[in-house]
């Protein structure tokens, strides 16, 4: 039986986050038990509240799907950081915290004076994690960046899309998630360093740099394999042995990726070893992949078009071929595998109602990933946090509300 103690239950995190990157970093920690207090601007709140999707396409600041997903398990307060009292209250809160996660735009950091030094003066043991597109140092440190900019500067966008058309960013702001995940892991290492040194520090994570670093190994490998840096992939890779391709089938798409000869052979047999497959031209997987993959795609299309993705996937799995259905979100939602593993979490929210959320990305046997509470309504925990943690009175709270601090 797992214990009731969550892995990070002794860690308090203050999140000054907007949209995806810093909120997802804080969510990863909250889902393993950290006490995350999210700070939002009064009235406006996190812009993810306006992002959607919304139930029945009825916009409501407490019902945005992106916000609800990224902020469950957190407590939420409002603070107007443009006021001195707002900033002082934030720093007071930081004296009782282990970690601050922030993704303020550079001009905001400057205008508010909320740089690492300001946080460190308030609490020298604090880990301050900045997760931004370009990072907090370097020639572009003052530059504004969204996920698409980080993805562009990282070298990732240059590889995705049709070579004849514009490069594509990674969908669903994946660049922000890249920064967020890296920042979560980096923050943990800083917490380990603090055990040794007793000191906090600044953890500066640029999502562009995280992506460029990790994709560089692949790019260098391609360089070694084919001697040039290729352009965009299109619907297939054209620099390794066949197949690495995404093709239509009867009711959707099917993904065929392997580097091993035996997988391809099994697939040829699965197709009934058609006449063409016996020609020398279709025996050289290297030439097929690098010189005329489009032609091979056309050869196998009739077989793919005769079957649904579920039929093809079942056949491939039976025959130990690692080719996969291109699952849509409907397929994923109905996946028997995810149900068998109790992946989905159904949770009630006072405004948005009962909804199904993505579940644990990893199963920890002793200190499990858990969804305990839905995302906070704007300012929901003002009293709990400001009175409970910082000792303000109810009367103070009224004054703070009147004067636009909370």
């Amino acid at each position, binding site marked *: 039986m797992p214990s009731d103690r969550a892995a990070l239950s002794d860690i308090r995190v203050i999140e000054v986050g907007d949209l995806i990157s810093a909120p997802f970093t804080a969510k*990863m920690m909250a889902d393993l038990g950290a006490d995350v207090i999210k700070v939002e601007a009064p009235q406006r709140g996190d812009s993810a509240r306006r992002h959607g999707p919304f139930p029945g396409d009825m916009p409501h600041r407490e019902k945005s*799907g992106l916000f609800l997903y*990224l902020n469950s398990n957190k407590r939420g307060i409002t603070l107007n950081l443009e006021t001195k009292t707002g900033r002082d209250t934030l720093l007071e809160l930081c004296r009782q915290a282990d970690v601050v996660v922030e993704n303020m735009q550079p001009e905001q950091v400057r205008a508010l004076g909320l740089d690492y030094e300001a946080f460190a003066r308030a609490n020298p043991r604090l880990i301050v994690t900045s997760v931004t597109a370009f990072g907090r140092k370097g020639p572009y440190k003052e530059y504004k960046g969204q996920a698409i900019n980080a993805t562009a500067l990282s070298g990732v966008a240059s590889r995705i*899309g049709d070579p004849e058309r514009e*490069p594509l960013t990674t969908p669903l702001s994946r660049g922000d998630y890249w920064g967020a995940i890296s920042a979560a*892991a980096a923050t943990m290492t800083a917490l380990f360093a603090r055990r040794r*040194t007793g000191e906090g520090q600044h953890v500066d994570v640029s999502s562009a740099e995280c992506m460029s670093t990790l994709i560089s190994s692949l790019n260098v490998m391609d360089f070694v394999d084919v001697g040039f840096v290729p352009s965009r992939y299109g619907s297939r890779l054209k620099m390794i042995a066949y197949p690495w391709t995404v093709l239509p089938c009867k009711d959707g798409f099917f993904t065929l990726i392997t580097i091993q000869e035996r997988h391809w052979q099994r697939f040829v047999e699965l197709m009934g070893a058609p006449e063409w497959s016996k020609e020398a031209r279709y025996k050289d997987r290297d030439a097929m992949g690098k010189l005329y993959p489009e032609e091979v795609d056309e050869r196998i299309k009739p077989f793919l078009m005769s079957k649904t993705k579920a039929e093809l996937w079942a056949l491939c799995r039976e025959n130990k071929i690692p080719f996969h259905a291109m699952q849509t979100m409907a397929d994923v939602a109905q996946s028997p595998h995810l149900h068998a593993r109790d992946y989905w979490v159904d949770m009630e929210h006072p405004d948005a109602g009962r909804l199904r959320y993505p579940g644990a990305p990893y199963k920890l046997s002793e200190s499990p990933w858990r969804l305990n509470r839905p995302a906070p309504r704007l300012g929901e925990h003002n009293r709990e946090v400001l009175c409970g943690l910082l000792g303000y009175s109810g009367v103070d709270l009224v004054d703070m509300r009147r004067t636009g601090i909370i």
Partner: protein
Amino acid sequence: MTLPLEGYRVADLGQVWAGPVLGHYLADMGAEVIRIESSAGSDKMREIAKEPSEIRKMLDANFVFRNRLSVTLNFTKARAVEMTKEIVSHCDIVIENFSPRVLAKFGLDYPALRKARPDIVMLSMSAAGQSGPFRDLMGYGPSINSVSGYDSHVGYFGDNRLMVNAWDADPTMATMGAFAVLSALHHRESTGAGQYIDLSFFEGLTSLLGESVMDYSMNRRVAVPLGNRHPMMVPHGVYPCKGKDKWLAIAVSGQNEWRAFCKAVGEQEWTEDERFADVYARLQHREELDTCVAQWTRRQERYEAMHHLQSHGVAASIVASLEDVYLDPHDQFRRQDLVIEDGRLERNDVIYGIPWHLSKTPGAIRSLAHGLGQDNKGILCGMLGMAEGEVERLMQEQVVY
């Protein structure tokens, strides 16, 4: 200098890409990471690292085997399995990404390793996790992005093809794995208890699709590719610049940034067009707006345009190639503080640095990759106390192999 994970020891049974990336994160941050590998099951990454000369140096430096010790043990021999358990008894963490059941077959799964080291933290990464009807799902990282639902988003808006997104599943899951392992280690420091972590690529990748999952959950709407469109920002896209295949990514959020953008492009006639008067109007006329923006960008040199737009407070960046990433002054600057302790390595050789910048304990590239089995004697004699003669005999018997 303090390294954050100094004093922790890791047995790294990682294969191909995801496992080894996780191993180097821990090693860069100071853990002593021992790769347990074998010539009997050769690894594609190792094959590549055998490349000669300058490229080899670059790969060693940039690649995923740096900072680690290497022991070769052939799991098909019972004695090698026993020695692996002995090594694990000296470790805090085990990471592996074999197909499920492979380690059980060798007698090296969590129950077995836990006997060797009761408080071990062990992470298994696999395509679909260690249980459930699809646990035997085979596949390379990139193809699991198809299973997760992600790749059904990769393409141009309104186009009937999908594009391949060949790269990010393995390193993304490795980074998530690093967070999970370190959290479990943190838990062990508080409670003394080790544990087992089952990381499924399928589930991990689906957990990054929150907005699409929620749209299905709320409205039964199935997400389709949106290309470079964003639900709130407009213009938001990749636009052509002067020169062949040169591009600029621009993202404009809200009305203030729009005004700044209009000023930056020199108050062109179209910036006054009422179709573009507010955010809602611009979302309705995205394509027309993109055409106008492209007319402007086409006349610009991409770096100049980036700096110019940024000076007006507009988010813009070039679309970098590998070469650009290597030469870009910002990227170069970010690599400047990389701590390199291996004298064979020049700073300029390194593209693959340490992207987590910890201001006081930054981690280090302490050494280039060790060759297969380079540390056999060091570990087997030093840590396990075996006699040199015995190690040599086991090498001849292909136990140490």
